[in-house]
């Protein structure tokens, strides 16, 4: 077992950290307050290559392995104070691009992937519905074949980039009587008649990335826009969900590293009764716990990515990683807030924003309860 990074990996991570600090955090307080997505920052990240890091070179990406990519995503999360932006980048890479790359035809990949890598187009991953959250396959949206077209009808909710996406991957029932085994996946262009992107909805955290509803009302798309096989929708979703579950929280590790540096600096500078507050165990121990969570999270994430790189089963590791990283970020965010006290309660410090942003990770990509169902099931329970 080798825990060393190569000089190349170190260099890539350092570059990502420097880039994120320099170029990805401007106006985050105002954008968080207003719930505004910055297409300019998105494009900067794309121009830096982020959206192609894990894409094979033959498709225009950098072809990095997943261990290297998550290390860079972690660095991005440390340097970029906009957790919404780094979450959105991950969701695009592991949800949309993974499904497109693994199940798309040559024509579909050629049409959609380059614009995703270049950042010119953002895409939505449309599965969640009002009546199907954790029960993801209980869909009401239908796709009916009519000649050379499919007709989509239904409503998707809580869709990342739903309000502004140029295209969407849409899961719908092609055989409603077959439940999850009657689902199929489609590519739908937002400009198609019958496709309606609804306004951005306010939410607690990750406010710099737009969420919202997408509805389909007699939306006719070419039959050639079927992604994968008819009836393979659930399997396609499970596959791409596995990637997302494994890798999407990598930037949160970077945010946790940033929190530790800020907490240590604060605890050294702030003095009480003649000594820095960091000399008090009531302050020092929570920071030690923050570091423990960070290092434990790293081991889980890197192992999961390592297995994924080799095509080895990592269902258990992915569920452990998703659960641990989501809860660790919440706990460390709350600890950072407690250490900073009234200072951390102020919006200007960004500490309270991390607390709000951390909650999303407990929900999206499969709630931590669902992850525990998977873990328990794999243990034979």
């Amino acid at each position: 077992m080798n825990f060393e990074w190569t000089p190349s990996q170190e260099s890539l991570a350092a570059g990502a950290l420097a880039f994120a600090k320099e170029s990805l955090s401007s106006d985050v307080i105002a954008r968080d307050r207003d719930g505004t997505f910055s297409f300019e920052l998105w494009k900067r990240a794309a121009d830096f290559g982020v959206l192609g890091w894990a894409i094979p070179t033959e498709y225009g990406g950098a072809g990095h392995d997943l261990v290297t990519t998550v290390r860079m995503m972690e660095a991005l999360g440390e340097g970029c104070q906009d957790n919404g932006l780094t979450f959105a980048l991950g969701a695009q890479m592991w949800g949309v691009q993974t499904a497109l790359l693994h199940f798309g035809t040559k024509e579909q990949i050629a049409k959609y992937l380059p614009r995703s890598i270049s950042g010119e187009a953002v895409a939505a991953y449309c599965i969640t519905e009002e009546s199907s959250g954790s029960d993801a396959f209980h869909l009401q949206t239908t796709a009916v074949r009519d000649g050379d077209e499919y007709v989509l009808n239904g409503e998707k909710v809580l869709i990342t980039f739903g309000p502004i996406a140029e295209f969407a991957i849409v899961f719908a029932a092609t055989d409603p009587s077959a439940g999850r085994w009657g689902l199929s996946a489609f590519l739908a262009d937002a400009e198609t008649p019958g496709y309606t992107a609804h306004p951005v909805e306010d939410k607690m955290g990750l406010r710099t990335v737009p969420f919202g509803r997408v509805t389909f009302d007699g939306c006719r798309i070419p039959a050639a826009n079927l992604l994968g096989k008819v009836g393979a929708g659930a399997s396609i979703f499970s596959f791409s969900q596995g990637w997302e579950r494994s890798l999407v929280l990598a930037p949160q590790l970077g945010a946790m590293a940033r929190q530790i540096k800020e907490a240590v600096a604060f605890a050294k500078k702030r003095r009480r009764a003649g000594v820095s507050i960091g000399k008090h165990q009531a302050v020092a121990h929570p920071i030690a716990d923050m570091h423990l969570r960070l290092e434990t999270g790293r081991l889980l994430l890197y192992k999961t990515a390592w297995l994924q790189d080799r095509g080895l089963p990592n269902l258990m590791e992915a569920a452990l990683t998703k659960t641990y990283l989501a809860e660790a970020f919440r706990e460390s965010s709350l600890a950072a807030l407690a250490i900073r006290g009234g200072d951390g309660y102020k919006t200007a410090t960004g500490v309270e924003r991390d607390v709000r942003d951390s909650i999303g990770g407990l929900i999206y990509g499969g709630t931590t309860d669902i992850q525990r169902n998977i873990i328990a099931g794999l243990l034979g329970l």
Partner: protein
Amino acid sequence: MSIEALAEFIRIELLDDENQKIGPDDDLLLSELLNSLSVTRLVQHIEEQQGIIVPPEDVTLENFRTLNAIQTYLQGRA
């Protein structure tokens, strides 16, 4: 991979019920005998035993609905 070997794996490892009877044409999926996690574990088991990769898009009702369907699919992959 024999139908009986598949049935035994499902009985013992997935359902934890050695008395569960599973016929070659019994519906594994629409009957919800197997949930999504169980299907994933079954596919992993088949991959390990057969030394093959089962593409996710092949995990469909047509190929995995019954033990007979699974065997037909695997024979087609041979």
